[in-house]
């Protein structure tokens, strides 16, 4: 019987369709003697654990640190985090699969999140996403994803490039955005959210 595709759109219930391998032994908490964790990554994770009353709270910052280093949450990256945090890799994989910002497959060095939620889509984001995808086609360095509301509807349609917000974009900006990224320039600098002033006339100050 063919599996029923229920959650094709980046679900929080991944693995719904895939059968469990019941013969596989569960992975235990990794043995520190057997897992090589780079010293700076270990230090970053330990510092994160020290910030909380319970070390488990550091799961998100630790996974983020590993992803920043390896480009994605690879099985090796997760094993290293598990080793330092004294958790099982399965536990951390369950956490990583829940959150949209963790990459579960190898991903490009640059992330381009295109908001395609309601406000941005009312202002042309769906076409913009297609145009950016086309412009970046075949470039393994650039990870273009459509994203849910990024909280910048005032600059719709907008993109988050390596977690920096830009907008509003015209369709014609798609090519320039990708060109800028490829050549190592800041993309669309004049559209940076940081430059935007408040819209409220009563907020004005000199």
């Amino acid at each position, binding site marked *: 019987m063919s599996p029923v595709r229920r959650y094709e759109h980046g679900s929080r219930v991944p693995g719904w369709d895939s059968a469990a391998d019941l013969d596989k032994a569960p992975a235990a908490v990794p043995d520190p003697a057997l897992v090589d964790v780079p010293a700076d990554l270990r230090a970053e994770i330990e510092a994160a654990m020290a*910030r909380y009353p319970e070390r488990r709270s550091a799961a*998100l910052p630790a996974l983020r640190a590993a992803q920043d280093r390896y480009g994605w949450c690879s099985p090796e990256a997760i094993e290293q985090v598990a080793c330092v945090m004294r958790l099982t890799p399965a536990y951390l994989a369950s956490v990583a699969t829940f959150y949209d910002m963790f990459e579960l497959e190898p991903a490009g060095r640059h992330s381009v999140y295109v908001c395609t939620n309601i406000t941005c889509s009312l202002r042309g984001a769906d076409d913009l996403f297609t145009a950016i995808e086309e412009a970046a086609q075949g470039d393994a360095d650039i990870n273009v994803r459509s994203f849910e*509301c990024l909280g910048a509807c005032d600059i719709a349609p907008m993109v988050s490039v390596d977690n920096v917000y830009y907008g509003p974009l015209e369709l014609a900006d798609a090519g320039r955005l990708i060109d800028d990224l490829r050549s190592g320039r800041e993309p669309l600098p004049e559209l940076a959210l940081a430059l935007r002033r408040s819209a*409220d006339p*009563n907020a004005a100050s000199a």
Partner: protein
Amino acid sequence: MSTTILLRDIDEPGLATLAVYERRGGYASLRKALSMEPAAVVAEIDASGLRGRGGAGFPAGRKSAFLPKGNMDKYLVCNADESEPGTFKDRELMQKCPHMLIEGVVIAAFGAGISRAFIYIRGEYEAQARILDAALAEARSAGYIGERIMGSDFSLDVVLHRGAGAYICGEETGLLDSLEGKRGNPRLKPPFPALQGLYQGPTLINNVETLMTMPYILEVGGAEYAKLGAPNSAGTKVVSVSGHVQRPGNYEVELGTPSRQIIYDLAGGPPVGRRVKLWFPGGSSSPVLTEADLDIPYDFDSLAKAGTMLGSGAIIVVDNSTPVLDVALKVAKFYRHESCGKCTPCREGTNWTVRMLERIETGEATPMDLDIMASVQERIIGNCLCVLGDAMAMPIGSMISKFREEFEAHMLSRQLADVAA
């Protein structure tokens, strides 16, 4: 004359730094609070009539009073996960005036006798997290957070925690699980977080804007703040206006301001030649209103009376160039994607709603499907651990009931097109 509290001089150069914030009188309210009894601080907040700005509109003073007294570990969590589509007020506030949030956090923690605070900021707000981190470091070295704040006996540790992209983590118990390093699944309530929240301890959870209002309330007094706004909706609100308007952005208005004034006078209304078709008054989770509802005063009770809600204070305007089906499909797909999958009515209900809307789009649906879809919405509401499913069911249900003719006309035109082909 409108009063501007949170957005006043928000673009002043350097406002994000301690020096400029202090020059403007920053942290004076904290000094005043620390000279008072904690119960008196909560009494001021209570007297102000301030209602939570995150979505539910719960009275902030009463929430604080729910926390048990005593010396157990208690926590304050600032909800800076702002993920409700259409909402971007907390982003601008944190980015431009981070110290006002920190001051609010310390005041709220002092009032409730809390010694550990967390700010849970959504992962996508990296720039804002950096700004807050820098502000926290400044506040720490100036003695506004940390041990024995400003020479008092009160100590508070504040940790900034970044999420990683999940709408459900804005739901307060999903947020707590996420902060504990877990998947952000909502919890069964009761127990409510005020009694058993973070690490099983009593936890006070407040939205960014709610906390940022507290320094002003301490400055002028609760009774003075209560004079602003509308009955049962005290104060000002930063409203995020977006969609088909000419000047999208955050506008601070007194609650009770006519909605038309916000959408037309401040945000410029829809592009020339177009009209408002429908609008979400409080983020994409709120039941939609139409052009006929533009004169409703923008406050908690007036919007509730109109069958919708103020929610997070995000107005999304859709003009008459957009089919209602497109809006419904976009909204339903979002909630399908963000459903955590724990409760069946939400997990399946969001999925089936998307499928039925797609059937309408392709012309396979019959008018009966609209009734089935409406009944699916009714079966979601109130039947899950949290309100994510309701947050889809309410706007979709309202679109079906208010724009039924348009849905039916679309189905008919698709079927006629098929017959013609």
